């Protein structure tokens, strides 16, 4: 009985931790000289552990959930890209809109990764 309860407890903890680690990313890039829209959706449930860790690092390095959206997109700059990124991770969900002129350097690796995925039609 005790063993069963411990196993159940461990299983519950594991499930909670796994859910907190799960993430879903929606990415859209519009604008640019070509004006071609690209999209990507990335779900951790469909990725191997190595890829999951890589993306988690990119999210962490960008400080995505701590980033303060200024609402300043400077949309009057011709031909720049506009990016909309929504990440749901555990209980957290946030959408950030950026343009080439407002992308912080910390976001560039994440955007490069998502752009590559969108090009491949993933």
């Amino acid at each position, binding site marked *: 009985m005790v063993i069963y309860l411990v196993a159940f407890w461990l299983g519950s903890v594991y499930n909670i931790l796994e859910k907190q680690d799960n993430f879903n990313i929606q990415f859209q890039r519009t604008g640019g000289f070509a004006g071609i829209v690209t999209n990507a959706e990335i779900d951790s449930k469909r990725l191997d552990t190595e890829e999951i860790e890589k993306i988690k690092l990119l999210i962490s390095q960008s400080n995505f959930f701590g980033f303060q959206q200024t609402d300043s997109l400077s949309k009057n700059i011709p031909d720049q890209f506009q990016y909309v990124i929504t990440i749901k991770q555990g209980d957290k969900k946030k959408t950030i809109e950026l343009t*080439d002129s407002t992308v912080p350097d910390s976001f560039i690796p994440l955007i490069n990764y998502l752009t590559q995925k969108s090009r491949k039609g993933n």
Partner: protein
Amino acid sequence: MTEQHQHPHDPINCIIPPHMVDKIIENGGKDQIERAVKTLNISDQIRSARQSVPEAIKRTQAVAGQKNRLIYDAQNGSTLPGTLVRSEGDPATGDPAADEAYDGAGATFDLYYEIFERDSIDNNGMDLISIVHYLQGYDNAFWNGERMVYGDGDEDLPVSQRLFNRFTIAIDIIGHELTHGVTQYEAGLIYKDQPGALNESFSDVFGSLVKQRINNQTAAQADWLIGAGLFTSKVNGNAIRSMKNPGTAYDDPLLGKDPQPGHMNNYVQTTSDNGGVHINSGIPNRAFYGVARELGGYAWEKAGKIWYVTLRDKLNSTSDFHTAANMTFEVAAELYGKNSPEQLAVQKGWDEVGIVLNLDKRKGCGNIFGSFLAGISL
């Protein structure tokens, strides 16, 4: 010289935060929008000036008609401007991107100076600053309010997966980006909805004219493609846009189909891409092609002249397609006479894309012949 040339010190320009300016452009009235755009243009220039080109390299005094090209290599990073790799008069570097940016900026300067008597982007001998190798896998080019910036395409992907070549590969792209600067200093068309699509279209028009002039092609000989050579062989497409047949430039499993309309009946209502500025530009693009086709010969000589004078003298930041149509008709009369073949060609070009001239709706400025033409009914 316009106010934008002078960069007046307006205290309001210093206090309005950018997000508020964006909101004004989105929701404000015409006067509010014009003021906000002026603010935004200056703010963007100030922002880009923070990463300024060393003053010692720039000319201290512009000489009329003498171009000064400066090519920088960002070395696939985000820090601008990067390393200076070629200045005016220097020999070729051997780097295709740097040399194409140099040659393309020169050909664009020459078109504006030799044909339209315009001295560089600001008509005051402004340096032509280009930055190549911007970021990694950056499949784009843009005008940042002060300089032209070019990426290398999707060179970060394996060769077999690449869709884009470097963005300096097509000279009309260089002319396109530089013309965004000209528009900024002239009409100041806001980058949204129809004014934004006009902004894009003027860049395509003069980008195409740069290419046609370099190739010594008449309107009948030109391909009227924008960005030919930019796609790799993996893409099913000839170019990014077709001015002659909007919507036919590419049709690819990965990129989708060229979404440009060539007629007002197919105008695309969207909030994406600032209201479809790269989509609906197909309509005025085709109108220009139609005018050039009707007039024959070299498109920069008459059609280009009409479009240039319209951009310089007649349009403002909120001008829409109908205003542009009416103003080109008015400029054609000023340059070539009322009911001249040139003026009738302009009328036909716009008519073919579903824009019927209505002189009562003109919103342009500086209508020297306004009252004279007001009674003309088409």
